[in-house]
């Protein structure tokens, strides 16, 4: 038994090696760099962390990044759940069309999608031109380079990551359950909230996890749609590393972002494990 485990365990070696070289090694290096007090990496110490955590500006950037992730996740959920549910009740022919519509954005790079939002929300973008033409506004509204613009763009870009896990979770629910609920006297709303929603919770949590992790680190969208006005952690790291050449501080910011997100992810994961245990017969 143990021998077999050993032999078959060798199958994970390539992946393990890959992770060691390209995930753990760089991360360790990052951690090592962040533990230096000076730019020339001579002195070890926690000065960079202290500097970050005692400065209100820095904490503000961290806060607005985490808040951005939260906002995007919640709105994506509100938009994505009905879409996933629609898919689950649609006839098979329409299900294929819906899935295509959901997946299609994933096939273009997020950079392309971000540029599309620049075109839509710009001063002379589609939205402003339309509003001007309708006479609803007289001067172009500032849509781009606002927090809301970043949220809107990210919601659209991350939507497939929310919808797909929920679609999977909904498809796994025994259709007899809602019929049983209906025949026991429950109306369709009660059936939806008491049976469908709780049983799709693992998918919801997985979707939230993906969207959250991906939107707090969406460097391109945050930077291009948010412009210089909106400072988020990924851009802050970029700025400190590339522009200010302050690698230890950039590394410390990166570690702090990593651990903040990791903490949240762990909590969501624990929740997910509990709900998954319940919904599996």
């Amino acid at each position, binding site marked *: 038994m143990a021998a077999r485990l050993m032999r078959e365990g060798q199958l994970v070696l390539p992946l393990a090696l890959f992770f060691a070289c390209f995930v753990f090694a760089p991360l360790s290096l990052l951690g090592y760099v962040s533990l230096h007090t000076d730019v020339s990496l001579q002195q070890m110490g926690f000065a960079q962390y202290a500097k970050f955590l005692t400065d209100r500006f820095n904490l503000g950037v961290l806060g607005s990044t985490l808040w951005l992730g939260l906002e995007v996740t919640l709105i994506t959920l509100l938009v994505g759940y009905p879409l996933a549910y629609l898919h689950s009740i649609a006839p098979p022919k329409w299900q294929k069309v819906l899935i295509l519509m959901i997946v299609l954005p994933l096939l273009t790079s997020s950079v392309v999608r971000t540029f599309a939002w620049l075109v839509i929300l710009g001063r002379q973008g589609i939205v402003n031109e339309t509003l001007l033409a309708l006479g609803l506004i007289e001067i172009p509204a500032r849509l781009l380079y606002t927090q809301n613009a970043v949220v809107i763009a990210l919601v659209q870009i991350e939507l497939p990551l929310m919808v797909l896990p929920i679609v999977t979770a909904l498809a796994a629910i025994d259709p*007899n*359950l809602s019929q049983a609920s209906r*025949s*026991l006297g*429950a109306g369709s709303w*009660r059936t939806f909230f008491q049976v469908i929603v709780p049983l799709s919770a693992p998918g919801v949590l997985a979707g939230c996890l993906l969207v959250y992790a991906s939107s707090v680190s969406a460097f391109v969208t945050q930077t291009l749609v948010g412009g210089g006005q909106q400072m988020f952690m990924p851009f802050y790291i970029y700025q400190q590393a590339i522009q200010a050449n302050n690698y230890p501080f950039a590394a410390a910011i990166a570690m702090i972002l990593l651990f903040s997100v990791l903490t949240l992810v762990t909590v969501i994961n624990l929740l997910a494990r509990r709900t998954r245990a319940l*919904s*599996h017969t």
Partner: protein
Amino acid sequence: MNAAIRSVLSAFAAGGSAAAVTASPGASGIALERIVHRYGAAIAVNDVSLEIRPGELVALLGPSGCGKTTLLRIIAGLLAQTEGQVRIGGEAVDRLPPNERGAGIVFQSYALFPHMTVAANVEYGLRARGLPAAQRRPIVERMLSLVRMDSLARRYPRELSGGQQQRVALARTLAVSPRVLLLDEPFGALDKNLRLGMQIEVKRLQRELSITTVMVTHDQEEALSMADRIAVMSSGVVEQLGTPEEIYDRPRTQFVAQFVGHTNLLSGRLVHTADRFDVALDVGGTLSLHDPAPCSRNGAVLVSVRPEHLEFAPDDAAAIPAVVDLVLPLGPSVVYELALSSGEKVKVTLARTGGAPAHRAGEAVRLRLAAGAPVSVFQA
């Protein structure tokens, strides 16, 4: 077990909440009138009319794809029929959604809510009906003790065996005191040992509560043993509706004869003389019948004879010549497989009285109809 159920039921009778279980003398019958259901171009149920009496247990028996489950779902309101009318307790329910029909359905997969405990599952329907907690609790307790699951009320469905899950499903359905109980292949997911026990239990519950019940099954033994009447279905139509005895002894169609139990089909010519009916069999020998049914017209016919209704005969010109092929002693009975002169095989089942079988393989014998044996005659 029996005593437990009885005590619970007498508790009901002694003035328990009337909403709990209607062991009502005014049980509701079900009337299906000319039901047709099409899935696209395919016809699943073709002009079925059935009258199910109050308090009766009717089994819809047939091979898969015969439309029996479709029919059950139409009664439950989970499926809208293309044509025809469903009445429960005399009231047309076609426009009512499932939650207002008073039809409780137990699914083949039980469809217990996996995220709720046993008690919460049973309570679900009562909650949906807006019963206050104080009234819900005693009903849940009574239902769980009715199916002997009170000790497992806090378990989750995944922690239960198949039989236990089925009991919970039954309790959950009965808790809302449905006017009729619908069972979709209720024992299909149970292993053989459990099945008989649950069949007895369900039958007893159904009797005691005198609740009108429709059960879908493809298992003929289950239908024969549990149902008051059986509707044998094939390709969307009811081939025959009758008591288990009628179905077994007097199958009205060749399909019923072959689907329910084993049968031997013998071809011959029916000749009606002044005082009797004779069937001259193609393989030699003659069967004399009093009352051939469903076909009594002169001409080519098929006679369906159950294996236990044939017996060995002394050498007689009227008896059927055959050669013993196989002898299978099965404990209480012996099954003989014999070859007729045409090469067709027939089976004969005889009670075994101990000792060696009367005939051996290779022996030439003659067969006749046992006295008073029911047979069916079909037009060939």
